[in-house]
């Protein structure tokens, strides 16, 4: 099962490191990363694969909430289907 992790906020050191550390510790594999500046905000989007992990999307979301708070970011973890169903026929 694939999920999308989106990180939006002010650019600063260590965002990728901290987010990927949580994912690594949870046995979640990062398949793709893109980052860009949208409306003056740092926006990072990761596609992750969750086949090897015992953690659920909700568990990962909870773990990332700590990073979200610490670094003043907005982080979402959502199953990939919500995006593909909205934007692809």
């Amino acid at each position, binding site marked *: 099962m694939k999920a999308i992790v*989106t990180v*939006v906020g002010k650019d600063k050191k260590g965002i990728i490191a901290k987010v990927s550390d949580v994912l690594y510790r949870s046995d979640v594999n990062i398949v793709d990363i893109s980052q*860009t500046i*949208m409306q003056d905000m740092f926006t990072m989007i990761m*596609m992750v694969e969750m086949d090897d992990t015992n953690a659920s999307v909700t568990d990962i979301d909870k773990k990332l909430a700590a990073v979200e708070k610490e670094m003043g970011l907005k982080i979402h*973890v959502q*199953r990939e289907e*919500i995006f593909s169903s909205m*934007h692809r026929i």
Partner: protein
Amino acid sequence: MINPFEIMETINMIDRENLDIRTITMGISLKSCADPDIDRLCEKIYHKITNYARDLVKTGEDIEKQFGIPIINKRISVTPVASLVDALDTPTVDKCVRIAKTLDRAAKDVGVNFLGGYTALVHKGYTNGERVLIDSIPEALAQTDLVCSSVNIGSTRAGINMDAVKQMGEIIKKAALLTSKTQGFACAKLVIFCNAVEDNPFMAGAFLGDGEGECVINVGVSGPGVVKCALEKVKGKDFGIVADTVKKTAFKITRMGQLVAQEASRRLGVPFGIVDLSLAPTPAVGDSVAYILEEMGLEKCGTHGTTAALALLNDAVKKGGVMASSYVGGLSGAFIPVSEDAGMIAAAECGALTLEKLEAMTCVCSVGLDMIVIPGDTSASTVSAIIADEAAIGMINQKTTAVRVIPAPGAAVGDTVEFGGLLGTGPVMPVKPYSSEEFIARGGRIPAPINSLKN
């Protein structure tokens, strides 16, 4: 990978533009519960609902967390209760109220927001059970919290049952008086329909119709805020572009509904019924159907041009949504509940939006005169006449229309009534001071219109 801009568009719709799934509604047939003994009937009803719906709320919450899309309500609709009352040994109002309390207890125990189906379908005539059930509606609504009631009093095929119209005026007044402490809150849980649909997931009018199966999942989407934001980007453009923008947005909104419906159906092991493509507003600022109409260029919702704007909106929502879902049904159209829509409230308060204009608007959209507070001293016959007018629109135009008005005890024009939560705040709107008493007193049936004879 999906384009980052598309991903952020979805996230913005949810975070900033109030995109949500308004309701996952599980329809449960109670036909198998019919019993002449009231004790056994109540036991069977409680057992069936709590058994079928035990995982409904948790499943909804899991989907919400995993997909990151809010699902505001989890609800239940059941077989019209009047058919169970008909099967009772000697139906009485007290027995009906016991059934309502059982439904309320079951709804609370499984954790849903509302349960609909305290319903009678009397568009052509009454059975004995239906008559008793309708008599019991004020007590049943006053003594329960989550039970919603509806009565179908007309249809294109049958005409309008004016005896029922007359009675419903009196029932609404009685329900308001029994709940005068909450300014007639019981009336917010009671809808009078013409051409009621069998698979509506929205309250207060949801029930599981006769042609439906044992158990089904129906989903209602929302998203007026998303449509409004999309229209902000095409300011001043012609109506072709406006319609196209609404269509594209409705498509995206509906895809969310379809995804959630399929997922809920799979996880609960219950067949997927329909997605209802209604634009349902909430009192939250930015989640208003009135603001969409104003975004099209109207100074205030209710001014000249409002009906045309609503017609375009309603049609474009359907055209966009129908391609996005495998089964579309329910009411499917823009809702215009006054107290639940920040823009409608403002328009009614400043006098731009009147009952007459709302009536015109209901000719081109789903569903009817919805969540309108009228003065507490409005007579039962005037309430009946309002119902008759609205039913006539539905009957002739072969569409669903409904009336959910609250004659708030003690309230007069200029007052505001607070219902709280999704039901919002209603300014008291004036009704005509002239009597319809003799018209309503005639009784009988308005015959089915010529356009019903299609065979």
